[in-house]
């Protein structure tokens, strides 16, 4: 199938009303608009990175301000956050495979891997929620101390990002299912995966700075 590429370039020029500007490029970059959006999204990731950096700065400054309440060492459960970490790492990998299959034009597999990724994401969010509820239950609420305010906000912001990612991925799964892989859906798959990998990177730092250093 991938051998028919060259031949289908021009045929696809206006397939589905999609104006392919650059048939020689990798599929997600084939429309000019798509390649602009990918660059734009990278830059958005840079801004999001600064956002997380500021939250990290806040957390690091407040991490010892426990106001007589529980500290990270008392709260954090190693198995719990390790599980979360491995789930997210795996989901980053499965998301990557989805991109890989997208490049090979395998619609069914793309959908499959994306569903797997979203499910992993969902279980990550579930575990995190469970963790939060547990903390709140034992009195470690966001209002308890500056440390906990910073903790919940930093980790929670990441969790919100993941949740948005899941909704977004779902909408893209539907679109791929409906329209197949074309330069537009391919771009969407590519971008949502950029986002997903980025969240994985952020989590690695949460894992290190919040959890590991918390239990050190």
């Amino acid at each position, binding site marked *: 199938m991938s051998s028919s590429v060259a031949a289908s370039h021009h045929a696809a020029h206006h397939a589905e009303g999609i*104006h392919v500007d650059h048939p020689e490029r990798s599929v997600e970059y084939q429309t000019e608009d798509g390649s602009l959006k990918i660059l734009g999204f990278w830059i958005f990731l840079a801004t999001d990175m600064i956002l997380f950096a500021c939250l990290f700065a806040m957390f690091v400054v407040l991490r010892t301000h426990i106001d007589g309440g529980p500290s990270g060492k008392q709260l954090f459960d190693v198995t719990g956050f390790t599980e979360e970490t491995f789930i997210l790492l795996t989901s980053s990998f499965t998301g990557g495979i989805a991109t890989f299959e997208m490049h090979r034009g395998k619609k069914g597999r793309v959908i499959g891997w994306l569903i797997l990724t979203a499910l992993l994401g969902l279980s990550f969010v579930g575990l995190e929620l469970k963790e939060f509820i547990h903390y709140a239950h034992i009195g470690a609420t966001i209002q308890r101390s*500056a440390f906990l305010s910073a903790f919940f906000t930093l980790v929670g912001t990441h969790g919100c990002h993941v949740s948005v990612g899941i909704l977004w991925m779902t909408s893209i799964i539907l679109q791929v299912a409906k329209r197949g892989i074309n330069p537009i859906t391919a771009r969407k798959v590519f971008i949502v995966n950029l986002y997903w990998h980025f969240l994985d990177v952020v989590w690695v730092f949460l894992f290190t700075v919040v959890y590991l250093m918390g239990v050190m």
Partner: protein
Amino acid sequence: MPAWFHQFADKYLMWQEGPLIMGSDVLILLASIGIIFTLTYFKKWGWLWREWIVTVDHKKIGIMYMIAAILMLFRGGVDAELMRTQLALPNMHFLNAEHYDEIFTTHGTIMILFMAMPFIFALFNVAVPLQIGARDVAFPYVNAISFWLFFLAALLLNISFVLGGSPNAGWTSYPPLSELGFSPGPGENYYLLALQITGIGSIATGINFMVTILRMRAKGMRLMDMPLFTWSVLAACVLIIFAFPALTVALALLLLDRVLGTHFFTMLHGGNPMMFINLFWIWGHPEVYIVILPAFGVFSEVIATFSKKPIFGYKSMVFALMAISIVGFVTWVHHFFTMGSGADVNTFFAIATMIIAIPTGVKVFNWLFTMYRGRIRMTLPMMWTIAFIPCFAIGGATGVMLAVAPADYQYHNSYFLIAHFHQVLIGGTVFGMFAGMYYWWPKMFGFMLPDKLGKWAFWFFNIGFYVCFLPQYALGFMGMTRRIYTYPSGLGWTVPNFISTIGAYAMGVGFIFMVAQIVQGIIERKLDVTGDPWDGRTLEWSLPSPAPHYNFATIPTVSGRDVWWAVKQGELPKSSLFPAKKDVKPIHMPKSSGRPFILSVFFFIGGVGLVFGLLPLDIIAGLGVAFCLFRRSFEYDTDYYIPVDEVVETETTLGRLQA
């Protein structure tokens, strides 16, 4: 009157607070009725919606930004006049402390975020795509969202004065003063939400223009061929992208403190108020360069055009812009030298701050030497530009004096500081925006503005400026601190304050002349038929005024800088910039959409909900935003084509089509 109305009037319209608020209530009501009546009477609602609200055309968005910015300049200016009136004499009772506090807070906030920012965005939109030979910006739909977010955020902040009370903790809003315990009531929430909403729009604009400039330049235009205004926009975008997220975080955390009871910046339970200040200035210092760099870009264009000479030291100019934008990120502590982070910290940030003077100075010298051996034409844009140089040089020099950390222990929060930043903000940004407005006015609207009233405006504003702000340096040395609503007599403060107030009134008169000039221009409508009224040098002047909605029928081919000038000199063939009939292809254009507006309205509703703690409104808003985003994601039919015939016809009428 029914009881509920009384309650509403007392609690939210704050009628018991006296004539000032009541007057504003009535004024706003009358103005709104007037606008609604006019639109209805002339049957303009449909027109407003079709032509403006749903537009994604960068040229129209630019115009809307500019109108909003001028309105906000008026609002902020009235605030300034009120403050100056109160300060004219010692022990005045024109405003009480609460009102004065609200007024300087909204003055600063509005001037920086709702006047300077939209004004630079206006010029981004008006000039950048035309200067680089693009059909629009990279993401026209997002561009519309940015505008409407800004617009509704501005509305949100402006209704605060008459609905629940304005913020009153200063435009810097330091906790713990801005925390719930010390600032109860909705005012501070208005500040946090309005800034948050417009900030999101600004980040989007930063990304948008960065992608536009990096990827949508005309064929053959290398980065080092770009006009300096475009370069300045790129530099400002770098600043926006890396600075605004810090503001987002600072505002969000303070909001959490206020609505959710967290302890980021509270005094008790381990909060650390200084961290807000740190985050605020991580954004705040770059922010002042965000609003000055585009002004620098305007000056570069104007000086080259009206000196009939290419800009002197182009490469140096580009390097200086980039240097300012990068070094601008490591100076933020100079706003709190006196919070005592230690001598090593202060020394580092002091020297980093001073270093900015070097590239800025290089720019000043290059402007001077562009005029040197040139032929200077004293048009309005050029007058504002020339007026900028001494004003900014003095303001910059006092900035360098502030950067001397131990000396700043004596200047900090005094009127010396107030004088510094008005010199750079007005003498730099505002003069720059005026210059840019006059310069591109014909390109935006297709007609020229009459000179005479503009010159009156210029002189009143300029002389008024010095009369207003030079005495404030003296006040600083006399120990007058900022943000005091009144002062006792006998300290020597009376005379300088009185003079300063006279200057402020003169500036107000200048502003009125400017408005009169615009009104006269609209009535006279002296059309610019050439498209190149200033004998310009860059690509936008090769287009008719105003440009057709697709800008360029065919994307021009560019080689080198100042191509339009080169074409006029016969150094480049006209055919490289003008369309040939055989090359015209259907033009791919984004469709208009009402969704950016609707989306922003949901943000506004959410904002109101958070300001007053009305959960249902927040839920509606959240669902509305999510719905809009999903609809957009599933929308594939977002573009249309302008057929060749139509383009050919338009271009033929314009007389631009080449054989």
